[in-house]
C-alpha cells in the first residue's frame, strides 16, 4: 500500500516538474522582449527592469532561480503591476474558482450518477432514451454557448437570477450549471455503461438468487461496483472543470483564477501565465494523485497487487 502511494507520488512530482520545465522554456521561447512594446523607455529604466525581473541572467540560471522560488511557493512578480505579485492574484482568485469548481463538481456528480443509474436500470426503455438524449445534448453544446443562452434568458429576459461578479449564492447558480453541464453528461454516460456491464455480471445473479430485493441489489451490489470506473476518471473530469472555468469565469465576469489566466494571456503578462499554468497543473496533478489513492481504498482488489489496475 505504502509502496503504491510512494510510486504515485513520485510520478506526480515528476509530472509537475515536466510541466514546470516545459512551461518555463515555452514562455521564454517567445520571440521579443516583454518590455519592448512599452516603446520609448529610457535605457536606464529598461536595464533596471531587466535586472529586477532577472531577465539579464542566462536562461538556465533563471530556471534554477524560478524552481527555487517555487519551492518556497513564490510565483514571482507580475510584469504589469509593481505592487501585485502572482501570489496575490492566486490568493484572491483561487478561493473563488475553487468554490465554483466544487459546486459544479457536486452538481455534475449528483445528476450524472442519477441519470446514469436510471438509464441503465431502464435499459432500452424511455427513461434510458431521455437520459441519454440529455447527456448527448450535454456534450454537444459547448459550455460558452449554454452560458450565453442562460445569461440571455434566465438573467436578462426573465430576471430570475443575477449574473456578473460573485457576490451572493444566487450569482453562483448559472455559472455552476454552465460549468457542470459537460461533466454531468460525461459521468452519466460512463455510469450508464458501467452499470449495464455490472448488471450483467454473475454476482448480480448470485445476489438475486439469495432472494435480495431489486433495490438492495442495485444499491449494495450494482452501484458500489459500477461507480469504480467513474472514480478513475474524476481526475480528468476535474481537469475539464478547471479548464472549462477559463471560459465560464470570463463570460460571467467572475474574478477567479481562470479570468486572471485569460487576462494574463491578453496582456502577455508572462509571469502570470507561467505562474497560473504551474499552479493549475499542480492542483490538477495533486487531485489526480488523490483520486488514485482513494481509488485504492474503494477497490479492495488494488491493495494486494500494489499498483496494477
Amino acid at each position, binding site marked *: 500500500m505504502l509502496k503504491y502511494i510512494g510510486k504515485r507520488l513520485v510520478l506526480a512530482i515528476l509530472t509537475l516538474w515536466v510541466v514546470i520545465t516545459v512551461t518555463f522554456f515555452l514562455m521564454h521561447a517567445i520571440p521579443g522582449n516583454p518590455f519592448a512594446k512599452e516603446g520609448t523607455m529610457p535605457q536606464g529604466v529598461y536595464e533596471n527592469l531587466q535586472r529586477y525581473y532577472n531577465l539579464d541572467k542566462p536562461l538556465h540560471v533563471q530556471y534554477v532561480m524560478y524552481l527555487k522560488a517555487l519551492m518556497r511557493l513564490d510565483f514571482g512578480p507580475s510584469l504589469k503591476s509593481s505592487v501585485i505579485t502572482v501570489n496575490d492574484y492566486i490568493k484572491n482568485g483561487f478561493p473563488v474558482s475553487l468554490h465554483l469548481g466544487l459546486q459544479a463538481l457536486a452538481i455534475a456528480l449528483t445528476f450524472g450518477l442519477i441519470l446514469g443509474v436510471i438509464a441503465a436500470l431502464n*435499459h*432500452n426503455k424511455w427513461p434510458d432514451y431521455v437520459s441519454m438524449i440529455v447527456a448527448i445534448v450535454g456534450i454537444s453544446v459547448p459550455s460558452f454557448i449554454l452560458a450565453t443562452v442562460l445569461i440571455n434568458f434566465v438573467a436578462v429576459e426573465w430576471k430570475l437570477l443575477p449574473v456578473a461578479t460573485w457576490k451572493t449564492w444566487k450569482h453562483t447558480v448559472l455559472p455552476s450549471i454552465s460549468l457542470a453541464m459537460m461533466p454531468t453528461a460525461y459521468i452519466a454516460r460512463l455510469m450508464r455503461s458501467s452499470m449495464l456491464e455490472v448488471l450483467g*455480471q*454473475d*454476482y448480480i*445473479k*448470485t*445476489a*438475486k*438468487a*439469495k*432472494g*435480495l*430485493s*431489486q433495490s*438492495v441489489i442495485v444499491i*449494495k*451490489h450494482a452501484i*458500489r*461496483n459500477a461507480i*469504480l470506473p467513474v472514480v478513475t476518471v474524476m481526475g480528468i473530469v476535474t481537469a475539464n472543470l478547471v479548464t472549462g472555468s477559463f471560459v465560464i469565469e470570463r463570460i460571467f465576469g467572475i474574478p477567479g483564477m481562470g479570468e486572471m489566466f485569460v487576462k494574463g494571456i491578453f496582456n502577455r503578462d508572462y509571469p502570470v501565465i507561467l505562474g497560473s499554468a504551474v499552479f493549475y497543473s499542480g492542483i490538477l496533478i495533486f487531485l489526480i494523485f488523490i483520486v488514485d489513492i482513494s481509488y485504492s481504498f*474503494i*477497490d*479492495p*482488489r488494488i491493495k*494486494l497487487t500494489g499498483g496494477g489496475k
Partner: protein
Amino acid sequence: MENILEVKDLHVSFQTYGGEVKAVRGVNFDLKKGEAIGIVGESGCGKSVTAQSIMQLLPTSVARYKSGSILFEGQNLLAKTERQMQDIRGNEIGMIFQDPMTSLNPTMKIGDQIMEGLMKHQKLSRSDAHKRAVRMMELVAVNQPEKRVNQYPHEFSGGMRQRAMIAVALACHPKILIADEPTTALDVTVQAQILELMKDLQNKLDTSIILITHDLGVVAEMVNRVIVMYAGQVVETGTVDDIFYHSKHPYTKGLLKSIPRLDMDRSRPLDPIFGTPPDLFTPPEGCPFFARCNSAMQICKNHNPLLETVNGQHQAACWMNHPMSQAAAAKESK
C-alpha cells in the same frame, strides 16, 4: 417419498432480434426430498435455462415462460410475484453458479455476502448472522473461518471461492440446492473436493440437489437419477445404472462413448458425436437428434418421439424403443 419439486411441460423462449429461440420445449421431471438428480447435456441444450426458470432468474426483458408449471411443495412458482419469489430464493431454494471467479461480489467481504441472505430471510441481527457465517465457512471446510469471513473474494483461490459460494447458497439451509456446472471452472483435484463437500452437506442438511453439468463423470459420483436433455427436451431419464449401463437413446450412448476412459485402447480414437444440435429458432419437426443419429429411421425425420417408459423409472424418447421398430430389426436380422 414425496416430490418436493415437479416441473411439468415447461416451455421457455427467448425473444431475440433474430426471432424466438425456443430454449426449453416441454420438460418434465420431479425431485424428491433429499434426492440428488443430475441434468446432463451439451451447451445450449436448455439445462441451465431450466434451472434458472425454477429460480426465475432469467432476464424478464427477453425470457418468456410459454406454458407449463413448476410446483415447489405444491405451489406453482411461475404464478408467484417477484416479491413472493424473493422469499423463496436463497431461503427455500439456493443456487450456485459455474464460475466462482465471477459469482462473488469483488468489493464485498465474503462474510457479508453470506450474511445478507440470513439477515433478510431469517431476520438475524448482524452479530448473529456473523456467527452463522463463520459456522457456514466452517461447514464448507474453509480454514480459519473467523479470519476468512473478513476477506474479499480476490484473496480466495478458485476452489475456496466455490466453497464460499456454497456457503452463501446454503446459509439459510434451503430445501433445494441447484448447482449449475459447479465444478466446470475448477481444477480436477479441486472438482473432486467440491463434489465430496456437496455430497457431505446433502446428508448433513438433508438438502435435495439438482446438479446441472455436461460432465457424465460428475453425475455418476453425485446423483441418484439422471435427466439427459437435448435441444430443449428430455430425451432420456433414469437411475445412474439405467443411463450408464442400459441406455436406450442413441444420444446418451453417444455421450457415454465420447468420454475418454483409462481402460480404453489408446490407439483407438475417441468417438465423438458428429455435427451440432439443431437451431432452436426453428426446431425440427421430427426427432431433434435425427440429423446426427446413426440409427435414424424413416419415421424420425418428421415425427418427434415422446418419452416412453422402458422399465421402472427409466424413460427414453426414441423410436427404436417402439415395438414396431424392434419387430423390423428382428426381421432384418433374420
